[in-house]
C-alpha cells in the first residue's frame, strides 16, 4: 500500500444555521467553491495533478444534490479532468470522503485528491432528504427508528449521566472553543467566507457562546421530551428494557449546534508531494466504519475506534489526541468512559456543542482541527471519530510527520 499523506486542510468559519446567520445568503456550492479556491491558491496547486474531489454531504438533495462537488470543481476553475463524487454517511460524510480518497491513493488508483464536506443547514434544512429509514412505515417501525436526541437521552438514562454532567461537559466545550479562538489555534485553517462584493462576510465561528456557564445551561428546556411522548419513548423502552422512564437531559445547549460550513483536506502520495512541491504534514494510519444498534444510534464511536486501532496495530494509549464529534454531550461522556480516555486528551479545543456541527462538513473539519493541534502541541497521533445516523460510525487515525 502506498503511504497516504495529508498536505493541507482548510475550513470555513461556521455560520449560524438560521435565516439571520452570516452564511445564509451563500449557497452550499459557493461555500465549497471558495474552499477549493483557497486550498488551491495557498498551495499554488496545479489542479491537473488531482484525480478526485470527494465531498460529504448529509442532505444531498436540492441545491446540495446533483453531485455538488463536480459543480464546485468547475465553478472553482479546477482542471476539468478532476473527477468528483459526493457521498453520504450522514454526520460522518466528511470523514468518509477523506477515507474514500485515502483508499484510492493507498490502492494506487489515484495519486492525489481532495476530501471534504459541505452543509448549508440554513438553506437545506435537516430532514430535507427524508428517506425510508425514518419515514417508510415498514422500515421505520420495523427498525425501531427514533430521532438522535432520543438516543442521546437513552445513553444518559442507562449510563446515569445527569443533567449536571452533560451541562458541565457543554460548558467546558464552550470554554475550550473560546480559548482556542483567543489563542489563534484555528488560524492556520480557517478561511473567511466572502460575499458577492468579495468582502468578508464571516471570519469566525458564529455560533460559539464564550462565557457560557453551567447555570446558563441549566435554564434551558429539555429538547426531546415531546418526541418521547409521540411514541419514541416506548420505542426506546422496547429496545432498552432497563429504562423505566427516559431522563431528558439534552437541550439545545448541550447538543451540537445547527450551522453552515465547508472543509477540505488535500491528500496525496509521495510522488504527488514531490511533483507539487508540497511537504506532507501527516499520514493516515488507518480508518474504519461500522454499524451499531440503530435506536440508540450514537454508540458506534467506541467500537469503530477499536476497529481502527486494531487495523493500525495500535492501542488506545498510543493515541495522543482524540477528536470525537460532539453530537450530544452524553455520547462523548460514554466514549470517554468506555475507552478510558481522560477529558484532557479529547476535544481539547472544544467541539460541535460550542461551534456547531455542519453535518457533512464536520468530519473534515475535526480532522483538520486534530492535525493543527498535533502540530501546535508537538504530539504525534490523533484519532478522529464521528457517530452517524442509523447506528453508523467512522474513525480515522492520523500521525504527524
Amino acid at each position, binding site marked *: 500500500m502506498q503511504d497516504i499523506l495529508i498536505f493541507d486542510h482548510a475550513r470555513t468559519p461556521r455560520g449560524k444555521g438560521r435565516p439571520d446567520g452570516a452564511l445564509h445568503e451563500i449557497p452550499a456550492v459557493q461555500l465549497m467553491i471558495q474552499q477549493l479556491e483557497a486550498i488551491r491558491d495557498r498551495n499554488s496547486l496545479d489542479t491537473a495533478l488531482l484525480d478526485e474531489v470527494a465531498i460529504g454531504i448529509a442532505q444531498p438533495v436540492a441545491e446540495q444534490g446533483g453531485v455538488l462537488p463536480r459543480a464546485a470543481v468547475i465553478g472553482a476553475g479546477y482542471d476539468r479532468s478532476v473527477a468528483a463524487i459526493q457521498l453520504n454517511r450522514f454526520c460522518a460524510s466528511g470523514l468518509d470522503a477523506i477515507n474514500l480518497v485515502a483508499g484510492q491513493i493507498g490502492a494506487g488508483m489515484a495519486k492525489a485528491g481532495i476530501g471534504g464536506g459541505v452543509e448549508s443547514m440554513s438553506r437545506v*434544512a435537516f*430532514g*430535507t432528504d*427524508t*428517506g*425510508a429509514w*425514518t*419515514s*417508510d*412505515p*415498514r422500515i*421505520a*417501525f*420495523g427498525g*425501531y*427508528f*427514533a430521532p438522535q436526541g432520543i438516543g442521546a437521552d437513552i445513553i444518559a438514562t442507562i449510563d446515569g449521566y445527569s443533567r449536571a454532567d452533560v451541562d458541565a461537559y457543554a460548558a467546558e466545550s464552550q470554554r475550550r472553543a473560546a480559548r482556542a479562538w483567543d489563542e489563534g489555534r484555528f488560524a492556520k485553517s480557517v478561511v473567511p467566507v466572502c460575499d458577492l462584493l468579495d468582502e468578508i462576510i464571516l471570519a469566525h465561528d458564529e455560533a460559539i457562546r464564550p462565557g457560557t456557564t453551567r447555570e446558563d445551561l441549566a435554564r434551558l428546556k429539555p429538547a426531546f421530551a415531546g*418526541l418521547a411522548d*409521540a*411514541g*419514541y*419513548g*416506548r*420505542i426506546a*423502552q*422496547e429496545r432498552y*428494557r*432497563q*429504562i*423505566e*422512564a427516559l431522563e431528558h437531559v439534552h437541550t439545545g445547549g448541550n447538543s451540537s449546534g445547527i450551522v453552515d460550513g465547508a472543509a477540505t483536506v488535500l491528500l496525496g502520495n509521495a510522488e504527488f508531494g514531490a511533483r507539487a512541491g508540497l511537504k506532507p504534514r501527516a499520514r493516515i494510519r488507518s480508518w474504519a466504519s461500522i454499524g451499531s444498534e440503530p435506536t440508540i444510534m450514537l454508540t458506534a464511536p467506541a467500537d469503530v475506534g477499536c476497529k481502527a486501532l486494531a487495523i493500525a496495530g495500535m492501542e488506545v494509549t498510543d493515541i495522543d489526541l482524540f477528536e470525537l464529534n460532539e453530537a450530544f454531550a452524553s455520547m462523548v461522556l460514554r466514549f470517554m468512559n468506555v475507552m478510558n480516555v481522560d477529558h484532557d486528551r479529547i476535544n481539547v479545543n472544544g467541539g460541535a456543542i460550542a461551534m456547531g456541527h455542519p453535518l457533512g462538513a464536520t468530519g473534515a473539519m475535526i480532522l483538520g482541527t486534530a492535525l493543527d493541534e498535533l502540530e501546535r502541541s508537538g504530539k504525534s497521533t490523533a484519532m478522529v471519530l464521528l457517530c452517524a445516523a442509523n447506528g453508523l460510525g467512522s474513525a480515522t487515525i492520523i500521525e504527524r510527520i
Partner: protein
Amino acid sequence: MKHMHLQFGNDGVATLTLDRDGGSVNIICDDFMNDLGRALDNIAQRQDCPGLVVRSAKAGFLAGADLTMLAAEFPAMTARRGYEISQRISGLLRRLETLGIPSVAIVDGAALGGGLELALACTRRLASENAVLGLPEVNLGLLPAAGGTQRLPRLIGAKKALDLLLAGKTVDANNAAGLGIVDKIVAADDSQGVAERWLLARPAPEQPWDRKGYRPPEARGLVLPEVALGYSLAAAGVAGKSGHRQPAPVAILSCVFEGMQLPFDRALQIESKYFGRLLRGKVAQNIIATTFLARQAALKGARRPQGHERRTIGRLGVVGAGMMGAGIAQIAATAGIEVVLVDRTFALAERGKAYSARSMDRLIERGRMTRDKADVLLGRIAPTDDFAQLSACELVVEAVFEDAAVKADTIRKVEAVTGPDTIYASNTSTLPIGGMAQSSIRPDRFIGLHFFSPAERMELVEVIRGVQTSDATLAASLDFLSQLRKTPIVVNDGRGFYTSRVVQFFINEGAAMVGEGIAPARIENAARSIGFPVGPLALLDEVTIDLPVTIYDQAQSQEGDIAEPAGVATLRRMQELGRHGRSSGGGFYDYPEDRPKHLWHGLSQAFKLAGQQPDDAEIERRLLYAQSLEAVRCREGGILETDEDGDLGSVFGWGFPAWTGGALRFIETEGVAKFVDNAKELARRHGSRFEPTARLVARAKSAA
C-alpha cells in the same frame, strides 16, 4: 339474487337494495359478492341508466365481511389466498365506481368495514342522523381490504383517514359529514328522492381520484419533507400506542403510504397484498378466533344448557353496595331491570347508588347520556338496609366482603326472605362455590357470578358452576348475563376457579423475578412489550401485595402441604418492608401526588440486582408460559370445559394479550413442539411450574 334486489325506476335510475336472506344485518359473504357481480352486470347492460342508488332494507346499511366464512379458511390460509379474497370484493367495488354512471349510497344505521367501503366506492353518500360509519378492521388484526385504505385518504386526506383507520373508531353522521365522508345528512324518508334528483341532474360519474390531474401531496411520497415527517411520526405513534406485536396498524399505515403513491388500481393491489400478509399470520387469526368468533358464540349462549326456557329477570337483588355491587346495580338498571340494592345501613346502600349517579353524570358530560334517561335508570335502583325487600327478587347477586364467614351469614339472611325459585349468585373471585353452598338451603340454586372490576366496564363474567348447581340455574344465570350484555365463560368449581387462579401466575412470576435480582423495569417493560395492559408489579400494587400472600396462606391452612409459589417470598419481604400496595401508600411503586408513579427506589436495596440480566425474550417467555401452563392444568383438571372459555377468560378477564388468541391458543401460536421444548428448558432453570403436562408432551410428539 339472494341478498339484494335491483330495481329500475321509470326514470331509469337503478336502486340496489341490500337485504340479506335469513339475517337481520347485511354482511358480505360469498353469495353477496355473486349477487353484487350480477347486479353490476345487469346495470352495465342498460343503455339509459342515469345512475345507481345503493341502500339497505335492514335497520343498518352493511356491517362488513362475514368473518365466519373467512375463519373457515384459516387452517389453509396463504398470503396469495388472502390477496385473492381481498381482490374479489375490491374488484367488484372498483367496477361499481367505474361503471360510467354516478352512484349514491344511502346510509341509514351502521355502515362498518366493507359497508363503509361500499359507500366510499359510490360517488356520493347520504346519511340519516342515526348513521354510524367506520372502518374497525384494525381491532380484529386486519385492515380494510375493499379499498378502504385507499379511498378514505383520497377523500378526506391522509391524516384524518389514518386517525380513523388506526383507531378503528366509528363516527356518527354529523362527524362523518364534518370529515367529508358523508356529503349530506338527509332524513331516511327523503333520501331516495334526494338521491334520484341528484342522479337525474347528470353529475360527473368519475371519482375524484379518477379525474385527470388528481395528485395529492402524498402521491409524491417522501419527496416532500413534511409528508415524510408525517409518516415518521405516524409510525412512532403506532409503536407507542400498540407496540410491536400487532402487525395490523403498521400495515394500514404502509397501505396508505405506499398506496397513495400509486395509480389507483395498483394501490388496491398493494392493499390486498398487505391484507394477504395479515390474514396468513397467526395474530389476525387469533384475534378473530377469540375476540370475535368465540366471543360472539359465548354471547349467543354457546355454554347454555339446552332444554330450559329462556328467562328474563325483572327484579334483581344486589347485596353489598361497594364499588362492585354498585357497578352491577348500575348495569342491571341500564338493562331495564329493577334493582334492590342492600347494605348493612341505609347510608351505605345510598352511597352505592350515588356511585351510579356519578357514573351517569360523567356520561352526560361526555354527551353519551341524557339527564332524563339517567333519571329513569337511577329510578330503578332502590337502596335499602332491609333484607326483606329482596323477597320479590328472582336473582340475588351477593357482592359482600370476600370472607367465608361474612358470605355464609349473607346467604342465610338472603335465603330467609327469598322464594324457593330465587337464584343466589355469589360474586366471589376466589372462594369455592361448593364451600359456600354448604351454608345454602338451596344449593341447586346457588352459583358463582364473578364480575370483574369495574363491573360497568369489564365485559367478562366468569360463571362458576358448583357441583350441586342445576342446569336450570346455569341457564337462567346465563340468560341474566345476556340481559346485561356480558360475555360469559362457564367454569367448574375450584380454588380461584380459572381467572383468579391463572392470573396469580402472572403476578407471582413477576415477583419471583424481582426476588432473583432481575431489574423491575425490565419485568414491567417485558409485560408491556408483549401486550399486557400493566406489568405484574403494577398489578400487584393495585390488588395489594397482601392478597396473593393471603390466598396462599389460606389455601395452605385449609388444605395443607401446598408448596409456596415462586414469588411469595418476595411479597413477604415487601410486607416486612411495609410496602403493601397502592392503597396503603406504595408497594413496588411510589405514588407521588405531583407526577406519575415510579418504581420504588428502595427495591434495589431490598433485592440486589443480578450482575447478569436475562435476555428480554426469557422474561417475556416466563410471564406468558407460566400462565399458559396453568391454564392447561385448568383445562386438563376439568376447571375449564372448553378451550374457548380459557381463551376468552384470559383476554377479557385479565388482559392476556389478544394477539396470542388467549392463554391456551398461545400454545398453538408458539407451536406445540416449540412450546414444550421451551417449557422444559424453563422448568429446568426455574422450577416445576414450567413443567409441561404429559398430555402437552404427547401433543408435541404427535405434532412433530
